[in-house]
């Protein structure tokens, strides 16, 4: 296959992928029956009494629960989470599943601590960067770019 044909197929695949990026956002509600944070912020009272799943950054903790800030579409909403035990610190990230109550409070049925603290996020980045570096070395050990065809060619042919 010639280089221009290869480029053409790549453009087609990228176009389909781009279409999927748009489609995924337009149809996101079909994959999540729960209101997004920006929807809660816009019309909170209409969701009171519903059971929802929400992701948020922990902004404060005390003996009675913790506070989270959830964000979507550039809009944030602060919620007070009560019930459901979770060992989290400010800066951590949680998923909370439970009933939405008035006055921006939630009764948690289940809490999953995604990142216990802000440091947990860095752990993922560092380990992922190590993985990427190791993979790159292993890949280039086995494959190289043939500059005549601009394609990847096995080092052992």
């Amino acid at each position, binding site marked *: *296959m010639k280089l221009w044909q*290869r480029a053409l*197929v*790549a453009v087609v*695949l*990228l176009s*389909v*992928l781009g279409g*999927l*990026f*748009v*489609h*995924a*956002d*337009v*149809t*996101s509600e*079909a*994959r999540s029956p729960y209101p997004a944070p920006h929807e809660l912020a816009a019309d909170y009272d209409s969701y009171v009494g519903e059971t929802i*799943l929400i992701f948020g950054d922990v902004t404060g903790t005390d003996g009675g629960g913790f506070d989270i800030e959830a964000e979507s*579409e*550039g809009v944030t909403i602060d919620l007070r989470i009560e019930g459901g035990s979770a060992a989290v610190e400010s800066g951590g990230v949680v*998923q*909370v*599943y439970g009933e939405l109550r008035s006055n921006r409070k939630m009764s948690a049925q*289940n*809490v*999953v*601590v*995604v*990142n*216990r603290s802000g440091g*947990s*996020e860095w*752990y*993922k980045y560092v*380990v*992922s*960067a*190590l*993985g*990427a570096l*190791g*993979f790159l070395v*292993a*890949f280039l*050990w*086995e*494959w190289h770019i*043939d500059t005549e*065809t601009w*394609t*990847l*060619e*096995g*080092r*052992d042919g």
Partner: protein
Amino acid sequence: MADLLSHLLAAYALFTVASWRIDWLDRQWVVVGMGGAAIPDLVKVGIVLDSDTVETVLGVPFSYSPLSKLGGVLLVAGLISLAFQSRYWRRVYPLVVCGGLSSLLGDGLRAYADGRASAWLYPFTNWRPPTPSLYVSSDPRALVVALVFAAVVLVLDRRVVDA
């Protein structure tokens, strides 16, 4: 999702075990399959370029989430295959897709507070499969399990090769 290193190690172990039965699946091809395992992690491009920013610039709704779904894996695997000599495509595409699937299946075991994994079969279905909620993405135990799995396979592989 689990960290990238865990995805790569799990894929290494799975493809190496498969290589015991498939003659042509040597180290050169195992590393190609491992590359596929990294596809769902491309969704992290959002850390560098936020999807809301892209949405504002393009003026259309936008989400990177398909990269960590089956549809994204199938399409990116096609793009990766194009980077190889065409005579390799019949091996590269299935290997890269299998690598991507291994990561999607691993991510499907992650914890969700409502007991349902993400809709990783999108765009073929919006269904969210149940998850056993075995781990969260920042859990170092996921990496430890992947490391032990890969190390055991590495040792066994040496014995298979020597035999």
